[in-house]
């Protein structure tokens, strides 16, 4: 998504050609006038062609933005499905308000921080294009992005990305975080931290200059969300009853697997816009390749994760198959435009295997992530970003040089470090000022009653007589 190659220059020669006619024909006076007309005519043709291309390119960016928007519904349903029914109103409220906050803050300061243009304060590290959004004269014209999209489409597409990092966090901290403190924690992440790290690469900052590559945001979007989630989860601690004193891990099943499945299909659907739109034009070859690599990686991730879970955990675990699809998607995101179908399948498949072990590993170290967000977006985000240094044109295999791999590593670590520092700071500050976690009684009764005084499913008899060993307390 970095930079933006020239999209088109049709009919340019047309003008030159006619211009030459003019030159050569200078001899005759009538000729001069005739050719003047011809030049004008040629210019109009050029303009018409560019305008058509501009309209198509811009249409795709707008549609891609809409597809990214629907990912927020995907996250909301996935996270709802993988948590308990007593915390459903809470997670829906969080994810709904986050999207609103994300869009508004991005309009206010995020877009400006992320795309400072030449407004770099600290060169390549921190920039500022001005408060709010406004298209200016050229922002609505073909001139803004060389015929790719308008200023408004640019903002629309980027704004839809912005809240993604936040919705990722929402799932990881679910079922125990207080509502207001959560919003207080997540707002600076979305409004400041995400756009700043984003500017390093997509804003043309130091990572972009160095040669780091992250096509659609395995690191810039997904890991950022995961690292913020990690910090919050560490400060927050695990859900009651998740890790028994005797060291056993008590699974806490989500309350609606159909909801979770809806979420993953919607996320896959939205990802077509997330990755496909990151081509930043409707370039036929470019976008269609990205859609293919994205789909193949998702499919491979889903199958491999299901298989791995079947071998390791001894059951055909739907939630792992679903996480695997997301793992494949996150993994291909950094290099979706560089990979061959075979590369894409490999990257997705490895991502699918990784996510299963990552989920188990985090439980081992008692990092309680109800939806597996840190595994999917963090671990697979790292893998996908590294994969750009291994597979594809710029990868170790093709080039034989580890240079790109090095760049990728620098990008991963710098963004991880920055995000973790900011997120821990926010989490600790919020905890000190407002408190971070609901009390045990509320957690047991559910956050829907505690934080919202509502029930998500008042018509259905809730089950209190749960399994014996895995105690819910």
């Amino acid at each position, binding site marked *: 998504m970095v930079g933006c190659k020239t999209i088109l220059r049709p009919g340019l020669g047309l003008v030159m050609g006619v211009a030459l006619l003019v030159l050569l024909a200078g001899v005759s006076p009538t000729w001069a006038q005739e050719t003047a007309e011809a030049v004008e005519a040629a210019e109009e043709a050029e303009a018409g062609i560019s305008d058509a291309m501009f309209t198509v390119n811009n249409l795709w960016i707008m549609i891609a933005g809409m597809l990214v928007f629907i990912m927020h519904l995907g996250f909301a349903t996935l996270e709802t499905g993988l948590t308990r029914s007593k915390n459903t109103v809470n997670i829906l409220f969080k994810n709904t308000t986050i999207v609103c906050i994300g869009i508004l803050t991005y309009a206010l300061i995020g877009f400006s921080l992320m795309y400072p243009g030449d407004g770099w304060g600290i060169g390549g590290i921190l920039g500022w294009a001005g408060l709010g959004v406004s298209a200016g004269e050229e922002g609505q014209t073909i001139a803004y992005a060389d015929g790719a999209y308008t200023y408004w489409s640019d903002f629309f597409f980027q704004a839809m990305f912005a809240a993604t990092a936040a919705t990722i966090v929402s799932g990881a901290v679910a079922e125990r975080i207080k509502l207001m403190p959560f919003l207080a924690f997540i707002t600076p992440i979305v409004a400041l931290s995400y756009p700043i790290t984003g500017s390093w690469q997509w804003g043309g900052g130091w990572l972009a200059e160095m040669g780091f590559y992250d096509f659609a945001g395995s690191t810039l979007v997904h890991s950022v969300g995961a690292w913020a989630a990690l910090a919050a989860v560490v400060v927050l601690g695990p859900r009651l009853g998740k890790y028994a004193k005797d060291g056993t*891990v*008590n*699974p*806490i*099943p989500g309350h609606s697997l159909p909801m979770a499945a809806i979420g993953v299909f919607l996320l896959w659907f939205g990802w077509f816009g997330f990755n496909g739109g990151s081509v930043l034009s409707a370039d036929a070859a470019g976008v269609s390749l990205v859609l293919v690599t994205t789909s193949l990686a998702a499919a491979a991730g889903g199958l491999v994760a299901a298989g791995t*879970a079947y071998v*390791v*955990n*001894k*059951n055909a*675990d739907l*939630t*792992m198959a679903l996480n695997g699809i997301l793992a494949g998607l996150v993994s291909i995101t950094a290099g979706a435009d560089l990979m061959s179908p075979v590369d894409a399948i490999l990257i997705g498949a490895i991502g699918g295997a990784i996510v*299963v072990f990552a*989920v*188990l590993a985090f*439980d081992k170290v008692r990092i309680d992530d109800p939806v*597996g967000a840190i595994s999917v977006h963090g671990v697979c985000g790292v893998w996908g970003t590294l994969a750009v240094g291994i597979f594809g044109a710029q990868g170790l295999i093709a080039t034989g040089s580890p240079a790109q791999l090095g760049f990728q590593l620098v990008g991963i670590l710098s963004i991880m470090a920055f995000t973790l520092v900011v997120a821990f700071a926010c989490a600790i500050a919020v905890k000190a000022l407002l408190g971070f976690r609901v009390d045990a009684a509320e957690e047991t009764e559910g956050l829907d009653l505690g934080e919202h005084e509502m029930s998500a499913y008042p018509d259905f008899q809730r089950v209190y*007589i749960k*399994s*014996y*060993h*895995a105690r819910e307390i």
Partner: protein
Amino acid sequence: MHMIEAVIKPSALDDVKAKLASLGILGCTALECKGFGKQKGHTERYRGGRMDVGFVPKVMLKVAVKSEDLDKAVDAIIESARTGSVGDGKLFVYELGKVARIRTGETDNDAL
């Protein structure tokens, strides 16, 4: 008058009701319940975790009968609910001090 409280397998409910009906016992009340006993529950797995779900879904059927109908009702239930496999359930008999039909206020045997 006695109250028969039978904890049976859900799949046995229809047969038990049919059998009771054949004896002219048409009224009863059923509740969803969960049983713990010799019959082991099942195992569930979730994201690598393992839960031994101790209980087994059962149906609790409550049938109030006149004392003279008690034995045949009990036999009917035992007979129709038995599969012979563990978990067929249990049957408990309580004595009732009073029975009333709310609609009419009739009491005791008249209410059954």
